[in-house]
């Protein structure tokens, strides 16, 4: 029997009640896979379940935001916001919402917020420099910011992700300077600013999440 919150009949009803929509769908698909491919271990099934849940949790929200951006006629600007925010988030990570119903409006407001702020506010070189210096300092101090759901325990991995976050922010800074005076420059700056705010411990506190779970786990193992 694989342990993905769905197996026991007695515990099933209670667990499904607190399970989010992507996990419920992924559980059903994983059970179908387990029935069809019986040589998969419990561990592999848990990984498959996670992979499917991660895909569903992201894709349907992203599809909604993409369609919304097209309908609002800001798709090209949204794409710049999406790529710059996502490139930095890939390595720096950051706070995540605990529930699906809070994630949906927050994700939509972040992506469209970056897009509209970038379109409507023209940032000059002084503001851009100031924002990037602050964000770079935040990356040096706090990236990568993990979560309880996905703790970054390995020190080597954390170091690598910190370096990659710093490189990404420098690349985005270069692009922002290259496109100075255009909307692209402002959108990239707001994307970097939003992502940097999401890695701050104060944001974790406000969201009710724990900052630095991976560091705590690796420190405990050393003691």
């Amino acid at each position: 029997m694989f342990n993905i919150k769905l197996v026991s009949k007695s515990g099933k009803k209670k667990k499904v009640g607190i399970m989010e929509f992507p996990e419920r769908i992924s559980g059903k698909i994983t059970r179908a896979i387990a029935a069809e491919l019986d040589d998969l271990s419990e561990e592999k099934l848990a990984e498959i379940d996670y992979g499917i849940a991660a895909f569903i949790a992201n894709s349907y929200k992203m599809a909604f935001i993409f369609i919304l951006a097209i309908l609002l006629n800001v798709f090209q600007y949204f794409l710049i916001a999406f790529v710059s925010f996502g490139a930095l988030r890939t390595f720096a990570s950051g706070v995540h919402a605990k529930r699906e119903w809070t994630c949906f409006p927050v994700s939509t407001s972040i992506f469209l917020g970056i897009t509209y702020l970038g379109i409507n506010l023209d940032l000059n070189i002084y503001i851009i420099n100031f924002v990037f210096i602050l964000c770079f300092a935040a990356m040096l101090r706090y990236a990568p910011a993990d979560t309880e759901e996905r703790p970054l325990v390995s020190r080597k991995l954390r170091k690598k992700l910190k370096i990659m976050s710093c490189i990404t922010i420098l690349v985005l800074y270069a692009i922002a300077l290259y496109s100075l005076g255009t909307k692209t420059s402002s959108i990239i700056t707001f994307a970097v600013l939003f992502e940097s705010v999401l890695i701050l411990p104060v944001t974790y506190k406000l969201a009710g999440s724990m900052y630095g779970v991976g560091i705590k786990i690796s420190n405990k193992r050393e003691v």
Partner: protein
Amino acid sequence: MKRFLKPLMILISTLALFIASTSTTACWAWAIREPKMPESLIKRD
């Protein structure tokens, strides 16, 4: 239908395992929520 079911399940499993394994080194969840990662995927030194 049965004939296609097994290859389809293998394909979904492979893609899911790819997403899961890349999630260990990079943040996949650009949207602001992520599912709980299984212990076996957490990288340790």
